[in-house]
């Protein structure tokens, strides 16, 4: 099990009309071959932006922090320092698709509506594999078969709007995997699908990951999905990782008040008569970032004078688990 991706101190700033905002601050994580890292958080917590930075897909108004390190080990063992690459050009294009594949939330919008599924698949295949048109086409059909699309020989010539939502996401998975990535970034790939289809697509992704031995970063706001697919989990809040650890342990015994709130907010069939318990308050806007711990404005257990003044350190609570909260810090406990 080798490490394929190490991200350290990832900070991302955007120039906006209201000044510079920094929606991602000092995020570190890593992905091992064959393992899945789940990134969890509400909308605006910086999950998608972080993975876009990995692919250098951020707009021109974005810039990376000076300490940001994103090191990726390619299939043939070279180490690429992604933070040093230009947004456009041969080196990053080699990485995009062929080394790191990306699946997005909306399968309809991620296909171009004016080209057939086959056209878009063959383009990706020919960019990253030494194949001619005919070969690429039969490989596309093979991949469509692999993701469980029936009658792939005919589907390959259809347009995206001729497929159902679930089929489209399967086709998108086939398209992304056909370029042969070693690391797959899935940005809420099942959020736009029906619950029953969701489960099928999750199963499919897990099976394919095991078969191909890929590393995966799975972004979601749904801790239930994390329980099904991720080995490790990192919980993000307002651009920082507040808790990390093996997925099962974090879900069974969450340590950060935010993670606890997220788990309590999941509706349960056992408690139909109780009211839902959402995490109180709203996620603050990135240009009005609270001082101290970013979560203190919504935290029921906050320590006045500490949480709102100084940002907490990351504390290792057990081997492989860490939490960024004053409640778990000796200094914090003494102050309380």
């Amino acid at each position: 099990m080798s490490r394929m991706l190490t991200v350290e101190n990832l900070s991302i700033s955007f120039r906006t009309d209201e000044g510079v905002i920094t929606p991602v601050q000092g995020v570190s994580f890593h992905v091992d071959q064959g393992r899945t890292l789940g990134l969890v958080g509400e909308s605006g917590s910086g999950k998608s932006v972080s993975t876009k930075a990995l692919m250098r897909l951020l707009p021109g108004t974005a810039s990376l922090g000076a300490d940001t390190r994103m090191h990726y080990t390619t299939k043939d063992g070279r180490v690429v320092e992604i933070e040093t690459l230009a947004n456009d050009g041969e080196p990053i294009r080699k990485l995009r698709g062929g080394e790191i594949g990306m699946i997005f939330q909306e399968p309809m919008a991620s296909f171009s509506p004016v080209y057939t599924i086959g056209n878009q698949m063959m383009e990706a295949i020919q960019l990253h594999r030494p194949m001619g048109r005919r070969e690429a086409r039969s490989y596309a059909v093979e991949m469509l078969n692999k993701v469980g699309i029936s009658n792939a020989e005919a589907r390959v010539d259809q347009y995206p709007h001729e497929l159902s939502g679930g089929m489209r996401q399967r086709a998108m998975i086939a398209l992304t995997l056909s370029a042969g990535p070693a690391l797959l970034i899935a940005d809420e790939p099942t959020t736009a699908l029906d619950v029953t289809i969701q489960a099928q697509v999750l199963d499919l992704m897990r099976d394919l990951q095991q078969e191909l031995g890929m590393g995966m970063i799975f972004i979601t706001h749904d801790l239930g999905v994390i329980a099904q697919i991720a080995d490790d989990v990192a919980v993000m809040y307002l651009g920082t990782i507040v808790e990390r650890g093996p997925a099962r342990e974090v879900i069974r015994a969450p340590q950060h008040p935010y993670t606890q709130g997220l788990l309590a907010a999941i509706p349960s069939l056992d408690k139909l008569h109780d009211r839902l318990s959402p995490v109180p308050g709203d996620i603050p806007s990135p240009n009005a970032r609270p001082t101290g711990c970013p979560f203190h404005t919504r935290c029921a257990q906050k320590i006045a004078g500490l949480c709102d003044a100084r940002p907490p350190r990351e504390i290792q609570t057990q081997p492989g688990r860490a939490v960024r909260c004053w409640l778990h810090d000796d200094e914090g406990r003494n102050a309380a």
Partner: protein
Amino acid sequence: MLRFTLERLIGMAITMLLVSLMVFIIMEIPPGDYADRYAFRKYSGTGVNVTEADIQAIRVELGLDKPMIFRYFDWIGGIVLRGDFGQAFAFETSVVKVIGDKVWLTTGILFATLILTYLISIPIGIYAAVRRGSAVDYGLTIFSYLGLALPNFLLALVMLYFANRWFGADIGGLFSAEYRDAPWSLAKVWDMLKHLWLPAVVLAWSAVAYQIQTVRATMSDELNKLSVTAARARGVPERRLLIKYPARLAINPVVSTIGFDVNRIFSELPIVAVVLGLTDLGELLLKAYLDLDMNVAGAILLLLTFAIVFMNFLSDLLLAWLDPRIKLGA
């Protein structure tokens, strides 16, 4: 695609039939007819007393006495079956002879203008959208407003002045003096092209300004589409990506307004033609109306509307080719 084309063709035929009816009715509406005008022109000032019976005789001679419905079928039948647009009374020859050359010249100006418009506005609009917010983008926006604000005839005058001064050419008209009455030859075509660019630039000016803004706006939208990010995330090279994904959809509104552009060119052409000393169809149309020479006027109106309807048909086909969702009815 075949079925789609056939449907549009039938639609076009029906439209043209209705248009021809309308044109014919418009031809009938002005009070009096060519027989009145003919008698007036022939005998006024000669002291001859013209009676109603004389005018009626002229009417019979020209075939103007028959009921309207007969004359309509006579007229449209001649056009469809024999390409015969009838008699140009004021010129005492056939309409085809009178308008023949001018039709080709007008068509030439039309296509030169359209091609120039799209060749300039589409790449520039795409470039402005990709470099959105840059100095080039702002410069182009200012140029666009200038283009929209400047009246055509003024531009024509200014350009005529500078073309004459810098190129020394007798730039008015579509031909140099030595080719004006010469038979068609390669040299004459070349001579025409040398003169064609000026009216084309004048007529394309405001359309270029307008279409740059259209392409820039739709291209900006398309650039933000997830499908573009997704293609970029697959490692598609940037230039190929821009052309294949956003640009193909960004030119949709331009293609779908080809018919409008044709219409606009036809309505601006007469005044530009007067300024530039061109003998185009517009000028002739005005004259034919003043003379109540209805066969000429009708033929020109019919040809102009045919051009618009045909270009609309063409833009439908192009759109269906650009965006496969259209013909599939999704």
